[in-house]
């Protein structure tokens, strides 16, 4: 076709052509490694069988080596200490420290791998590779990032309010840790099984507002202040739908204790997400607003106000804000799992697998959903979000609370097996939710057919006259 000499295609094209998929890479692995992998899988299967045998045997229940519920360990430790005649404060303090250590290691561990997970998963959504240079699969990337952040110079704006500038990264971290208190990880495994657990959760989540606001205000920067005001307005608004959604949960289960809520779901084998779909949606959506995640991340909307309330923070202070964001995401995951997804139970699977692993898996699933949303959806505008909360979520949540109150009183007087009323409630709630959402949306003036009017093909070419002709006909 041409007289030009043959030139090779670009190096990038060649690299893409030579890229091997994961399966191809596995097939290329040497025989020894394949054998090792098979051995590993076989060993795992065998050990599972052994565990199953012991569990069926009932030999494990409640012993200190029953790792399905780490609460057993602390229980035995405590009773041993009481038998030994320590001062009553000693077992109290010891178990409290153990629990705090557990929570801190969960949150801290997640801070170490969470950003890797997010970046890696997001990269897969965005047809990229993600971090893959530091360590295997780039696993050490968060550590490298943390070291980098800590080495960075902390720049403090000269006009910043020094005292209030230093406090927020710490203030905002406290609720992110405290919120883990009432979460039940297994039957006996919750740090602070308050009987006002639900209220506690809401109260703790409302504490973060102040840190955000102080961060934005003390930086003395318009972007920070805008971000802070947006975040505060949104957090205050979205606390109401969250409270109403949780109120529905409390009404149906009849308890504010998180472990009781989980036990209720396990008892009736009914996750609340099936019974209260609208509450679950409200909780999830409002939580994304509370913790500043897409599609509601307007508090730190990058394309508008740079980094929102922590624009002026640098080094590890900014790192703390980002860490809190990660920590809050899994905290919401844990809450979502506990309230709506059956917590540490999984239709009887919790007798075989440790409950905390099930909860962790559910948290991971919710976190994956968050990352998915972040990889997919654009961002709302502030007024749209506020309108959504006040005009849409709150009225419908109130209606739902009334409905659930009626259902709960029916359920409390029900004699026959609980399956029938629960199934009826599930169907009724689903149907009513769909109908309510549709009608209310139309009542608010939502009209999809107008919104999706597409451009047309020109029938004439020219200036204003052609435009008018096209508009006229």
């Amino acid at each position, binding site marked *: 076709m041409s007289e030009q000499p043959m030139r090779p295609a670009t190096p990038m094209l060649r690299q893409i052509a030579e890229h091997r998929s994961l399966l191809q890479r596995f097939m290329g692995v040497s025989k020894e490694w394949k054998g090792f992998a098979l051995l590993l899988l076989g060993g795992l299967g065998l050990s599972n069988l052994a565990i199953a045998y012991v569990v069926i045997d009932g030999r494990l229940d409640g012993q200190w080596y029953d790792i399905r519920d780490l609460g057993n360990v602390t229980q035995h430790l405590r009773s041993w200490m009481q038998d030994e005649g320590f001062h009553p404060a000693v077992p109290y303090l010891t178990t409290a420290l153990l629990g705090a250590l557990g929570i801190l290691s969960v949150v801290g561990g997640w801070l170490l791998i969470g950003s890797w997970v997010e970046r890696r998963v997001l990269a897969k959504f965005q047809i990229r590779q993600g971090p893959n240079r530091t360590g295997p699969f780039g696993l050490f990337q968060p550590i490298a990032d943390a070291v980098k952040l800590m080495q960075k110079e902390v720049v403090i704006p000269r006009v910043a*309010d020094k*005292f*209030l500038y230093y*406090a927020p990264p710490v203030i905002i971290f406290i609720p992110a840790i405290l919120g883990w208190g009432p979460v039940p990880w297994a039957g006996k495994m919750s740090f602070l099984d*308050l*009987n*006002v657990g639900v*209220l*506690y959760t*809401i*109260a*703790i989540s*409302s*504490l973060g*507002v*102040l840190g955000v*606001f*102080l961060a934005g*205000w*003390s930086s003395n920067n318009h972007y920070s202040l805008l971000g802070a*005001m947006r975040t*505060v307005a949104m957090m*205050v608004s979205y*606390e109401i739908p969250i409270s109403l959604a949780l109120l529905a949960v409390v009404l149906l289960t009849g308890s*504010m204790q998180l472990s009781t809520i989980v036990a209720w779901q396990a008892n009736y084998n009914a996750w609340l997400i099936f019974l209260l779909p609208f509450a679950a949606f409200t909780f999830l959506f409002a939580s994304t607003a509370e913790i500043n995640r897409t599609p509601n991340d307007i508090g730190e909307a990058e394309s508008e106000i740079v980094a929102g309330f922590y624009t002026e923070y640098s080094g590890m202070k900014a790192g703390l804000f980002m860490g809190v964001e990660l920590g809050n995401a899994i905290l919401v995951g844990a809450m979502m799992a506990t309230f709506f997804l059956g917590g540490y139970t999984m239709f009887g699977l919790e007798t075989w697998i440790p409950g905390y692993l099930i909860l962790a898996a559910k948290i991971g699933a919710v976190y994956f959903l968050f990352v998915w949303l972040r990889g997919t959806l654009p961002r709302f505008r502030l007024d749209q979000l506020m309108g959504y909360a006040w005009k849409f979520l709150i009225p419908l949540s109130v209606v739902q609370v009334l409905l659930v109150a009626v259902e709960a009183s029916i359920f409390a007087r029900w004699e026959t097996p609980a399956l029938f009323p629960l199934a009826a409630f599930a169907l009724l709630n689903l149907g009513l939710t769909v109908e309510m959402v549709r009608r209310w949306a139309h009542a608010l003036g939502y009209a999809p057919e107008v919104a999706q009017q597409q451009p047309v093909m020109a029938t004439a070419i020219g200036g204003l006259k052609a435009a008018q002709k096209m508009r006229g006909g």
Partner: protein
Amino acid sequence: MILAFFALSGLTVASALLVFVARNLLHALAFLVLSFLGMAGLFLTLSADFIGVAQVLIYAGSISVLMVFAVMLTPLASRNNGSTLYVIPAMLAAGGLASLIGFVAIDTEWDERKGEALGVSDFTTTVAGIGDLLLGRYLLAFEVASVLLLFALLGAIVLVQERRRAGEEA
């Protein structure tokens, strides 16, 4: 318990004092929240778990945010936390009040009321009891309080609503 009481009361009193001393209104606000939190802790030591958590929710979470908005909606110039000349009479009056309460507290024979019997009827849960009382004996008061809240909400909205006068550009 002793430790908890003294730590929390120290926190509460110190931050309440700092609210008075702080020169910047927002600093004062931050200390006020700290004081509220200490107070919530004190409530918990009185085994009032519901009230303690409600204190965190309402005071530390909501009223402080309201105050933040009030501070933000007024301009920079009015963000100082100065005192008027009334400070000295106020201090005298408050000192008198505090010493009166302290005198009564110390002078009264409370000793009989701290006896060993206290441990027995530790409330395990206050929520159910409070709920029963609110919707039982104090139902009328409860309803009136809800109406009061509603009217306060409406009143606040009406008060700060923008009245656009005729001829004024937006």
